[in-house]
């Protein structure tokens, strides 16, 4: 009863969410395979511009795809995002000081089936940012490795009926900085620069005709990030370099369908983030990691598994932030290659 079990990487759902809030973390979620389980791990890439998280791959901590026992799948992904408007508090504005901010992310991620019901994820993104010319600020962009992520996804429920299949998963993802980037350099910062722990629950229902729905809810605990100054203002004075990065509730809803004998998967998705605390970006001022970053994002995702080349797949996605608070109105396009094979005989 695992029709797709060996094609995991070949049919995944990938979505990537990128949220770049201004320059901070973008977590990217990826989901890859078609089979289910744990894929929803967050890869842990977060970018915060103010803190969004996005995963980009399939087989991620946030989807329902599971790797078969001892199979491994790699994702190589490139993503381009940009924004020229952002929400200062709840007010959408432009800012000629930064003009259009561009963000490019190259991600390498792997998913491994520890058992048929438990997947392990690891990922590392490289990010570069800059403003378009001309701009009034003359700020240098930056680049470097962002946050590594490690995760597990467990398939807790799988029930098959005449009409389809229901499955449910729990995932846990940990991420933390992989380089000495400065999270306080907004909106160009590579990430939030703080340890993050994402807990997620995923429910998935697939009809026999290939149509499916998926819902994900999660809480992302975010720790402290260290700035390079010993004082900052966050609705009051703080005499420390440490900034408390607001944690958040994150959720998403997905509708998708498998086509061509399970060789193509297409999805439409919505995702949201609601930070549990934080201050607003002040008037005409730079964002900082303490900001409350909320956002709503919609996008589409497709993953194609080459029927004639075992294990190989390609994916592409697009999404954009449609509403937010202290967040960039970012639009993102990404494309990647997945390759899956049996690691141990």
């Amino acid at each position: 009863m695992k029709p797709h079990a060996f094609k995991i990487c070949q049919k995944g759902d990938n979505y990537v969410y990128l949220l770049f809030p201004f320059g901070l973390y973008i977590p990217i979620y990826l989901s890859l395979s078609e089979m289910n389980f744990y894929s929803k791990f967050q890869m842990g890439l977060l970018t915060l511009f103010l803190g969004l998280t996005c995963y980009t791959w399939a087989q991620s901590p946030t989807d329902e795809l599971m790797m078969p026992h001892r199979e491994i799948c790699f994702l190589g992904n490139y993503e381009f995002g940009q924004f020229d408007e952002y929400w200062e508090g709840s007010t959408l504005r432009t800012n000629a000081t930064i003009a259009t901010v561009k963000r490019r992310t190259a991600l390498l991620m792997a998913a491994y089936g520890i058992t048929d019901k438990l997947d392990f994820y690891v990922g590392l993104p490289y990010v570069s940012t800059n403003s378009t010319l001309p701009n009034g600020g003359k700020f240098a962009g930056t680049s470097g490795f962002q946050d590594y992520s490690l995760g597990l996804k467990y398939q807790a429920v799988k029930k098959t009926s005449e009409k389809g299949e229901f499955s449910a998963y729990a995932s846990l993802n940990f991420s933390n900085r992989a380089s000495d980037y400065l999270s306080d350099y907004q909106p160009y910062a590579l990430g939030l620069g703080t340890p993050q722990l994402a807990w997620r629950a995923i429910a998935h229902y697939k009809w026999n005709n290939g149509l499916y729905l998926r819902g994900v809810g999660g809480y992302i605990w975010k720790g402290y990030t260290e700035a390079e100054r010993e004082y900052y203002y966050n609705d009051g004075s703080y005499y420390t370099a440490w900034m408390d990065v607001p944690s958040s509730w994150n959720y998403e809803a997905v509708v998708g369908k498998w086509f061509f004998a399970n060789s193509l998967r297409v999805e439409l998705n919505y995702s949201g983030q609601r930070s549990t605390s934080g201050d607003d970006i002040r008037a005409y001022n730079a964002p900082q990691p303490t900001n409350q970053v909320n956002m709503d994002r919609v996008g589409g995702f497709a993953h194609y598994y080459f029927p004639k080349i075992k294990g190989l797949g390609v994916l592409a996605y697009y999404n954009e932030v449609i509403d937010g608070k202290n967040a960039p109105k970012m639009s993102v396009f990404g494309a990647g290659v997945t390759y899956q094979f049996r690691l141990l005989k």
Partner: protein
Amino acid sequence: MKKHLLYISSVILLSLGACHKDLPTELEFESYQYASLDEDGGEWSPVLISAGSELEIPVPAETSSSAYQSELAMTKSAIQNMTAAQKENLTRWTNNPVVRWNEIALELIAKYNLIPGPNADGTYTLPNPATPEGPPGFPFAHPPYASRALAYLSVAQFDGLIAAWHYKYLYNRPAAYQVDSSIPFAYIKQEIPAYPSDGAVIASSSRKILTAMFPLEAAYLEQKEKEHLESLLLSGEFVSSDVEAGSKIGNDIAAKALARASTDGMKNAQTSKAVSDSIANAAFERFGWKWVNLESPQRPVGLTPLFGKVKMWNVPNVEATRPGMPPVPGSEEYEADVKMLKDYAAKRTLEHRKIANFWQDGLGTYTPPGHWNDFANRFIVKYKMSTLRAARTLAYMNMAIMDGGISCWDAKYYYHYPRPIQQIDGFETIAGTPNFPSYTSGHSVFSAAASEVLAYIFPNEASMVRAWAEEAAVSRVYGGIHWSFDATVGTQQGRNVAQYSINRAASDGAD
């Protein structure tokens, strides 16, 4: 497997839980024994008045009088009925509230240090003290504004405390807890007469100065003053007439400080575009260059072009500290600097980045003058200064900082020297380039001036604070927003300016 997952996640969760930090929102210290009481402090030379005795308060009633005894009973009963919140305030204010009011000033500076953005049509509206609500709200607490607010605050506190010390040792009224041994004292017992309350001088002078500087914070500051005055009674040291007399001195000296402020020239510092253009053109005719703002949309006027004309505290005339001419663009020295800046930008090191950010003190922060007040507060507590000594330290340092700012702004708009981003094609920075000319660097002058006063008052820290000032200066070069000569010449300029304040300090009777 489920157990495993549970186990792993529990471990992670626990380890993260252990990471909770209490982030400090003020300097943490408890009440302490002053290193010196300075019984003769009332005879020191003040800044705004001729002598401490110039501020008058009533002769206090004898402690045996019924008037005093009834005040004592009120103090006693207030202490007995103290709420938990009042007790917390008492601990927070400590026996050196000079530091706490300085922190309130720093907080307001950071809150108001926001540069007005452009209007939809590309124009800019500047904050107007006549309509402080704005938008944009008044003030824009930029570094010159901050230096001035801190100088008036500290000078008023210092003069007021000299007056307080004068009457304390003239009348020698004992503290409430000494008159009635059943009254508990919240702080460390020291032999300082209670009339008038030094804390009340600080509370009322600070509230009045800061309300003038930050008019939209009037209600907040009124609340802080009330809370502080109440805690003075609850401390067990004072009765209400002690507090009222201190408050009177505070209000009277603040009025004198604000009278000086109203005519010091600050109201003319932000000019019209016509005046600004004529200043730029004068420099262009004199030197062949002029700074221009490169923001988008372009700001029509630089920041406070006439701050260099503001009345100085201790320097006889601003030209006395004006530095020599900067290198002519195209000269060998200039080209060497261009190369250095390009090299720094091409290979930015982590060390340079950290230094640039540590000293940046940019928009939304307490500014460089605020950073040096932060340092001074730490030294004040470390060296266990009394309220009087603390106010003196901050007064001389903040006078030197403001004089440094005035001298620096004089040079900035006299020479009108372009910034690196204006001169070097495609040059990018890691710090924001401010809206005023390059030469000399404000950070360099503020920091050198502050560090020299601190070196004078805390000789054990001299080499350290001077090294800090030099690092603050070069941080601007690492950030890409200043030439190296802006920093080095600015550092010397700040030292020169500070010497005038140090000379005054050396002869005020305290050392």
